[in-house]
């Protein structure tokens, strides 16, 4: 099943390549491609997992079809309840996937250094233990989009040696869903007042896309379709023979033992009583054996 999944896009990509080499391009094919791609793999919107799953194939593809472009969007900040003002810019590469999806990669952030006025405002925030707020446009391509995504943190949480900040930007395609802003480490509760030694930001940024949910296990399908899974299911017969059939084996053994002891007894008695009869082959003679022995006693 899995191998089939890999093969399908691979074949498609091959056919695609061959088509393009002939100089014929069908606009229909892209749509087909998307649908086929989806047949096996649930990835539709966040395409990075696709990349990791069947790397050689997709790489070939996006070298042909994907186009990259650079985009920029700005980060605004606000001190307490003041208005937002520009604080820095994010730049990223916009990747357009063959199936129409777009994602941002290679995010870089450059922060404007604090002006004296900003420093003063930030000090006030530290004194009053107030919020330092940032915002990003919700659409990276066409800012500001529908609304800004805002995040805020107590200013005292950012203090280390200098100012440490940590952005987690949750993306949904090219839309910014949310930004989580805060210190990269912990921020223990009684937040003490201190001032930064140097006014430079140490920024960490992380781009996050949605994870895929694990699919519900479908046991029956796996048995039908997958060799590996079948191996697992066939496992029970691999239990030791003894473990499985002991309840039959023990009585069988006992019966055999009974029979053997009986059989052992008989020859003994026969041997003690009627030694010359040893070689007699007929069953009737064996049966008659003990009785004749009894008579003789």
């Amino acid at each position: 099943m899995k191998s089939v999944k890999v093969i399908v896009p691979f074949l498609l990509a091959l056919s695609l390549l061959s088509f393009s080499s002939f100089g014929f391009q069908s606009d229909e094919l892209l749509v087909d491609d998307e649908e086929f791609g989806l047949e096996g793999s649930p990835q539709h919107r966040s395409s990075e997992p696709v990349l990791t799953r069947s790397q050689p194939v997709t790489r070939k593809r996006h070298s042909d079809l994907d186009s990259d472009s650079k985009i920029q969007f700005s980060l605004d900040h606000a001190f307490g309840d003041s208005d937002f003002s520009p604080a820095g810019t994010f730049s990223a590469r916009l990747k357009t996937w063959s199936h129409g999806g777009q994602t941002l990669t290679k995010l870089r952030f450059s922060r404007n250094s604090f002006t004296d006025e900003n420093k003063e405002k930030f000090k006030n925030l530290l004194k009053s233990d107030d919020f330092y707020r940032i915002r990003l446009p919700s659409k990276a391509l066409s800012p500001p989009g529908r609304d800004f995504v805002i995040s805020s943190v107590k200013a005292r949480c950012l203090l280390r040696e200098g100012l440490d900040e940590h952005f987690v930007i949750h993306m949904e395609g090219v839309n910014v869903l949310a930004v989580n802003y805060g210190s990269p480490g912990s921020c223990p509760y009684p937040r003490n007042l201190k001032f930064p030694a140097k006014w430079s930001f140490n920024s960490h940024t992380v781009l996050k896309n949605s994870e895929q949910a694990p699919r519900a296990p479908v046991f029956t399908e796996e048995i039908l379709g997958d060799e590996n899974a079948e191996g697992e299911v066939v496992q029970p017969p691999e239990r030791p023979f003894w473990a499985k059939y002991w309840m039959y084996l023990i009585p069988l053994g006992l019966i055999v033992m009974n029979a053997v002891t009986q059989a052992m007894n008989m020859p003994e008695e026969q041997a003690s009583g009627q030694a010359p009869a040893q070689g007699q082959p007929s069953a009737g003679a064996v049966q008659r054996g003990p009785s004749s022995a009894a008579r003789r006693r």
Partner: protein
Amino acid sequence: MAIRSFFIPFLLFVLCFCSSLSPVLSLYEDQVGLMDWHQQYIGKVKQAVFSTQKTGRRRVIVSTEENVIASLDLRHGEIFWRHLLGSNDVINGIDIGLGKYVITLSSGGSILRSWNLPDGQMVWESFLQGPKHSKSLLLVPTNLKIEKDNVIVVFSNGRLHAVSCIDGEVLWKKDFEAESFEAQQVIQPSGSDLIYVVGFSASSQFKMYQINARNGELLKHESATFSSGFLREVSLVSSEMVVALDSTGSILLAISFQNGEISFQETPISNLVEDSSGPAVIIPLSVPGIFVIKTNSVTIFIKVIGKGKFEVVEKTNHETAVSNALPISEGQQAFALVQHAGSEIHLAVKLAHDWDDNLLKESIKMDQQRGIPHKVFINNYIRTDRSHGFRLLIVMEDHSLLLLQQGAVVWSREDGLASIIDVTASELPLERDGVSVAKVEHNLFEWLKGHMLKLKGTLMLASPKDVAAIQSMRIKSSEKSKMTRDHNGFRKLLIVLTRAGKLFALHTGDGRVVWSHLLHKSEACQSPIGLNLYQWQVPHHHALDENPSVLVISRCGPSSDAPGVLSFVDTYTGKELNSLSLIHAVVQVIPLPYTDSTEQRLHLLVDSDKHAHLYPKTSEALSIFKHEFSNIYWYSVEDHNGIIKGHALKCMCIGEVVDEFCFDTRDLWSVVFPSESEKIIATVPRKLNEVVHTQAKVIADQDVMYKYISRNILFVATVAPKCSGGIGSVTPEESWLVAYLIDTVTGRILHRVTHHGARGPVHAVFSENWVVYHYFNLRAHRYEMSVIEIYDQSRADNKDVWKLVFGKHNLTSPISLFSRPEVITKSQSYFFTHSVKAIAVTSTAKGITSEQLLIGTIGDQVLALDKRFLDPRRSVNPTQAEKEEGIIPLTDSLPIIPQSYITHALRVEGLRGIITVPAKLESTTLVFAHGVDLFFTQLAPSRTYDSLTEDFSYALLLITIVALVAAIIVTWRLSERKELQDKWR
């Protein structure tokens, strides 16, 4: 020998198998009704039809706003049968055909059904389609026949249908092509073969169609224009005349269409009533010769004399309800009117043509808490002296249903309880010395008899009759319905708020209504709409003398920015302690985790201008609040535009009036879901009052995982916007469901996961550190349930015993949500057979008992499912250590064990919500499920490990002790004697 050796392992195997069966939580037959109760309701009655002609059981057929069709016993008000139609199958009309079929028209006039009157079996069903949406009218003429078929005339979806009463076949149909024609009345003058359809077209045109009832042929079509337009309602005053109002509501129009000629007669209302003020509305009725209009609060009865001449017969300021006319004898029609005056209601039954003469005039004392009469239905019977008697069915403001006859309330039904919107639990008063137990066992003989019966039962000597007596004694045990607190905390009051704006206190022992209270109406607010219920004061510790009270938040009017009303109600007595009419709206209520010295809980009310108001408005509350000012955060969900915002307090309100209890707020964070790909369909927070016993979870290999327990996590589910259509509107490729766990203080997305090919509706429950949600998987064509558990990694290194011993751990340090969380999540999905109406989780006093999910299934039952089945650590082949820990081998679907339906054989029709309340006994939780029906039971998810069960044999224990003591004495004697003999030797 051989055979035995074969059997022993087999026997052992059987024994092992039996003992390994998981303990099933179920009841024995004789335990039904001991701890649970079930009540059946129908909802507010919209329409009622009496069936009393035949000599059989007298009954009334009702249709209700909860979409119930029910047949009620006229003598006692009990339900003979009942059908709950779906929520999208709203009943438009009911009637009785041929005296033995109940005909219902529902679903916007497109489904016509016939039910057998005695037992409620469906006889036939017809789908009536039409070109356009329109008002639906149902008419069941008594004497209209087409080829021996009795005919039902239905106007729906812009088409007139004649349907056979016997088999539901459509005999003929007639389209009304006119674009904007809106039918108002379908009239069938008795004794003729004509059907008149009258209505308005293009707001100023009156149209009349005359149709041959035999074949649907259009005989005549007339229209007339009235320049100033009409109001939509009409009142039928005779089979050839309707009365309507012009669009300004100031001119009465008598529209007669005798012989197909339409003529208008205008009469300004001011000519009839001198001091009329404001526009009038007409109350749609069909009483021959009389109609009713209402201006402001004045109800005016007007009689039609001659052709288009009106005469005012009565004006009244009282709230009045009028019934339709009821033919009582040849040419005589009676109708009833019910007026509300103070603590009484006045009934009058009059003949339609003779206003001044009353056939019946009575006054009945009425409970104030029932409010005003909303509807009245009349029925007549022949008295023993051959005169006419009348019985009236009244629907009151609190949605209760009463039958009045001979000046008394024959029966009443609290049908407001069919539409509960919020529930909270309250303790009962403590048992004081004054309340004696002697009252319980009033009679020594009774007491002796009871114990004799019980003894017989234990010795298995009881006859079936005795068994029944014992059973009823157990069920009616006065112990469980006492009005005092019990040691185990099983007896409580359930305070419920109904859609009618009435509070009820139900006793958990037997479900009886202890008190009820209709929300107070004030000058400022005529019709408060109840919204929510909060616990205002829960006295314990230092304020035990206070009675507990609840806070009812209601809104004064339908719009969301209408001013709010707060009512404080004592839960012991049901008295309203105080009522505040607010000047601001109430958009959000945040119960704060702080209480003042009288145990009043602080509440923050957020209005539509985003100001936060603190209640109670006392300086003490303010000082407590100021202390925690910077630690208060909340969130709001704007699901129409897909934004979730976090808020905090800023400063005092800036305004002309200084209000020190009002605070400005500010936005701290926002999450904006892209409108083209995600739409919020469910948000579930953690329960506020939930208790978590331990934050650590010891897993199989002696490892510890720390649960990420934060009160400030919100579960959000979004789906592709296309998915909001019906089933089949999307392919699996274009549908997805994204589940989020969001920290509501900082707006951090702690976890985000996409389910491809999944769609809503999503039902979820959030407890401790896990969330379970239910959705539909389009790829697998099945419902699925997923679980997400979230664990804290920042505490994960606290595993070293020495660290714990020397206190070098961070388990006691305060947690700040501003720290970057180090969490890991575990999740798993399973198939589930049922679609779900509600999910809840059991909650116990200390949170020690393992949890069960309570799933309200589509069959209106409640299924208890162990949380262990939804453990993301389940695997196909658990190791021995994992098995010992109680991990169940992974299966692809969740098992549904028939015995684990906690509703056993009952159904909670129209199930809407499940509420769990912890009892004082740790093992037990109280479960209340509500819908149209109510169901309550006690549940012990891990069995009652902390108390002896009811069937514990005390006698056996006693006998054992006695036997042991006797044995000790005997052996002691024996040993002594032996010793003596030894010494003598």
